[in-house]
C-alpha cells in the first residue's frame, strides 16, 4: 500500500486539535506491525499534551460485537478513541461498517492497523471508507522515541 501521506502522532493530533473534538473525525492509520506499540504510546502522550484529555484505547479483540453501543459511547474525559486492529476480524469489520454512524458520534476515532489489515478493511467496509477523514501512514516519533526517557 503506497501513496498515503506520512505523519507522526504530533501531526495527527495537531489536526484533531485544529478541527476540534466536537467535530466527528475518523482516521485510518497504517503502520508496520512492529512499530504499533511505539505509535500507541506516542498518540496517548500527544493527546494528553496537546488536547489535555485521556486516550481511550481498544484492541480489536476486546470489542464485543453485541455491545458496540457501549464500546463507542462518548466518554467526556476520553473523547479520542484509538482502536488497534491487532488481528483481522471480518465480523468486526462488518460491524464497524454497519455502525459507522454510531462510530463517528463518539468524537475522534483512530483506527490503527498494519498495511495488510488496513487494505482488507478498506475493501470490506465501504461505508466506513466513505466516512474516513483521511488515511495516513504513521511512523514512530523519532524525537522522543528510542531508549531515552
Amino acid at each position, binding site marked *: 500500500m503506497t501513496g498515503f501521506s506520512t505523519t507522526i502522532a504530533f501531526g495527527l493530533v495537531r489536526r484533531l486539535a485544529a478541527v476540534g473534538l466536537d467535530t466527528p473525525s475518523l482516521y485510518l492509520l497504517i503502520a508496520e506491525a512492529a512499530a504499533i506499540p511505539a505509535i500507541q504510546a506516542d498518540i496517548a*502522550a500527544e493527546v494528553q499534551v496537546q488536547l489535555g484529555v485521556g486516550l481511550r484505547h481498544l484492541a480489536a479483540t476486546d470489542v464485543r460485537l453485541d455491545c458496540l453501543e457501549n464500546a463507542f459511547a462518548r466518554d467526556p474525559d476520553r473523547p479520542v478513541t484509538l482502536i488497534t486492529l491487532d488481528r483481522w476480524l471480518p465480523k468486526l469489520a462488518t460491524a464497524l461498517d454497519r455502525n459507522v454512524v454510531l462510530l463517528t458520534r463518539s468524537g475522534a476515532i483512530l483506527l490503527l492497523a498494519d498495511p495488510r489489515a488496513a487494505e482488507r478493511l478498506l475493501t470490506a467496509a465501504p461505508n466506513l471508507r466513505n466516512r474516513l477523514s483521511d488515511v495516513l501512514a504513521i511512523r514512530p516519533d523519532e*524525537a*522522543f522515541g528510542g531508549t531515552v*526517557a
Partner: protein
Amino acid sequence: MSAEDELLLLARGRDSQMEAALGAMLIESPALLGRELRQDLSRQFDYSRMKDTYGRVPQLTAVEGALNELKCPGAEFADGGRLLFDIQLEDSQRGWLLKRFRFHLHLPPSRSIGMVRIHLNPKIWHDPLRIPRCHLHVGDSGAHVPFPIMHPRLILSLICEHIEPDFGVSAEQGVP
C-alpha cells in the same frame, strides 16, 4: 565582618534559594517535557510569532550516564529572530532534575540589542557574587544578571511573548 564578606553571604543565600527551587522542581520525564515544549513552539506558530518548526524540535538524546538533553538547534521567529536552546536533565531517585540549560535568543538585525542569553550553569564551584548559577546576559555583556529559577516552559513563554517582541525595539519601532 567586612562589607565584602556580608555581600558574599547574601549572594550565597540567594544561590541557596536557587538550589532549593531547582530541587523542588521535578520534571516528570524528559520526553514529556520535550513534547510540551514542541507543543508550545507550535502554538507560537499558530499565533504567527514563529515560523513552522514542523514538530522537528526539540530533539531528545541520552548524553551520558543519567543525563538526557533536549536540544533545539534553531527556531525562527516571524520577524527574523532566532532561538536556540538546550536543556540537560538528570535522573534522580526523586525524579528528573534540571541540571543545566542555555537559551540563546538572537534578535532581528533592526534591534539595538543583538542577543539575550539565559543560562543555568552546571553545579560547579563559582563565585556567587560574580556568577549566579542562573543568570541572564544582555547583548555581548559579560555581566551575569541573576535570573529566577523557572520551569523551562515558562522561560520559553517569557522569551517568545515578552523578550523577543520587545528587547532592543527603539521608540520609533515601538510606535504603531
